[in-house]
């Protein structure tokens, strides 16, 4: 790389480099590598509270996946994570793509719109969750108040208390919170497309739809890869919005239960079941971790293949 560094490094310089790299590496080893490796190990043990018991092999994993009490809860929650993932891919990432395209044309006021769409992104998820919980309140929330004042009383609902709308409400609150992120990532991706390509297509009389489908969408593939991978990881780690808006039990009747809530309840307990089980919690975390790593890498590889160099 650099010619001047070809000479053998002096001991002094080696010590200096070691001084630079050792503290960060030790820190990472202690607080990232060691916990993650232990997380796998812990799943193979029986736990009594905070004390590690005997080695039990795959027992915890079996209980999580097939056990009579745990498995139905886990699979029910898993399904809701999948729903959230699919819905957010369409609403959040898809919506972000559309908004980015509208902003890309730099219409009147685009600077304002670009800043506005990102305002909820900087807010804490806790603030977003509480805000929407208050807005969705059956009696005094502004959503139902607005419906009442428009004479649409029949549409008013206890949104978070109704099994048919609760999960959807959480998904929409999440989309409100984060849609600005894919919007601005896609916008940056679109701005990297050489303008001549789009100009040439326009001169050829390509329709807006054809332009989006055949030129813009394929050329922002790198943004799509990263956004879909991040959403995938986020959807299966989903915790804060459900925790704040519907509580640890995924009420009503587990219709909003997600794996993040199940994991927290299992590992750290809650009011109704205060027993904490680190063994089962670790097994669930390990399975979730493997699932995310395997599928996120497959997703990334598959999405990478459709990226075009330009």
């Amino acid at each position, binding site marked *: 790389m650099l010619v001047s560094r070809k000479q053998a490094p002096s001991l002094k310089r080696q010590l200096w480099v070691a001084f630079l790299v050792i503290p960060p*590496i030790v*820190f990472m080893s202690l607080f*990232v*590598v060691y*916990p993650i490796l232990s997380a796998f190990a812990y799943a193979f043990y029986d736990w009594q509270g905070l004390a590690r018991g005997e080695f039990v092999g795959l027992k915890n994993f079996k209980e999580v996946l097939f056990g009579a009490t745990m498995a139905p809860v886990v699979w029910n929650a898993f399904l809701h994570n999948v729903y959230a993932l699919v819905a957010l891919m369409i609403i959040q990432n898809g919506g972000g793509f559309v908004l980015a395209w509208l902003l890309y044309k730099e219409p009147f006021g685009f600077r304002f719109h*670009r800043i506005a769409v990102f305002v909820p992104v900087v807010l*804490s998820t806790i603030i977003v969750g509480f805000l929407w919980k*208050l807005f969705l309140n059956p009696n005094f929330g502004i959503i139902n108040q607005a419906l009442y004042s428009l004479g649409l009383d029949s549409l008013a609902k206890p949104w978070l208390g109704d099994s048919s709308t609760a999960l959807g409400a959480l998904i929409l609150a999440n989309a409100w919170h984060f849609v600005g992120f894919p919007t*601005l990532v896609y916008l940056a991706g679109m701005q990297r497309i050489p303008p001549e390509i789009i100009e040439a297509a326009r001169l050829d009389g390509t329709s807006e739809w054809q332009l989006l489908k055949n030129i813009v969408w394929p050329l922002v593939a790198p943004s799509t890869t990263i956004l879909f991978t991040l959403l995938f990881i986020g959807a299966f780690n989903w915790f804060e919005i459900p925790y704040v808006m519907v509580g640890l039990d995924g009420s009503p009747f587990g219709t909003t239960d997600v794996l993040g809530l199940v994991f927290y309840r299992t*590992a750290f307990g809650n009011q109704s079941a205060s027993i904490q089980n680190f063994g089962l919690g670790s097994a669930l975390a390990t399975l979730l971790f493997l699932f995310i790593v395997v599928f996120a890498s497959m997703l990334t590889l598959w999405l990478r293949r459709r990226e075009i160099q330009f």
Partner: protein
Amino acid sequence: MTAIASDTRASRQPISFALLAQVILIANSFIMLYPVVVMVLSAFKTTGEIFEHPFALPDFTQVGNFAKVLGETAMPTYFMNSILVTGTSVLLILVLGTMAGYAVARYESRTNTFILLFFLAGLMLPLKLAVIPLFILLRDLGLLDSRWSLIVTYTAIGLPSAVFIMAGFLRTLPSELEDAARIDGASEPRIMWSVMLPLARPPMAIAAIQNAVPIWNDFFFPLVFIQTDARKTLPQGLTTFMGEYTTDWGMLFAGLTIAAAPITLLYIALSRQFIQGMTAGAVK
């Protein structure tokens, strides 16, 4: 994003498209901002006023809710804790991230690839899922229920991205700079501190914002690690606060407004840096 480019982009659009685009963008910005506006307006109202006139403008001189939140609740303590935890974590991330990034970028070594792979793995792994062993480790170190439990966790999460941002930037600096200093007899630490690092402020700002916002907003790790009310950070304290005042909606909205205010105002003042920092991981 030059004026010329925007000109040609806009002029090719049929009027109907442009109109539809405006309608969608205005509607979207309304949806994005109106909830925040309602939150702020409601904070100036009494609970009765919120229930009866949810959309009305309040009397802005009525600041009783804010006074109560700041004077009678633990919110100021939560605030201080968030500032301490976020500030210390970001500082540690920058120091450690710059050290490793500098070593990898400016010195050739057989171990560089290994070091980068090591941090790349850290970038990919969600530490949230290792929270149980982390909990036990922190307990064994006597850090549980202290602000340090959060600081070391956030530093570990933020460090890999900072290493990549710093290494990526420092690699682009011309070697003539350090060679000249070396010929003048400057020591390696002196070259790093006085020659190279003053040039590296922009990537440091990006790494700082990229980490500060999620740390400031995080809720999961305080929920698991912190029990004592006096050590809770803002998002976690907010759940305590919301639980205490469930029926006093004026207080709830005032609490949310106070919690949201600093980061929102900072964002409005520095929107370019915020957007750049927060999308840094996803935009090449």
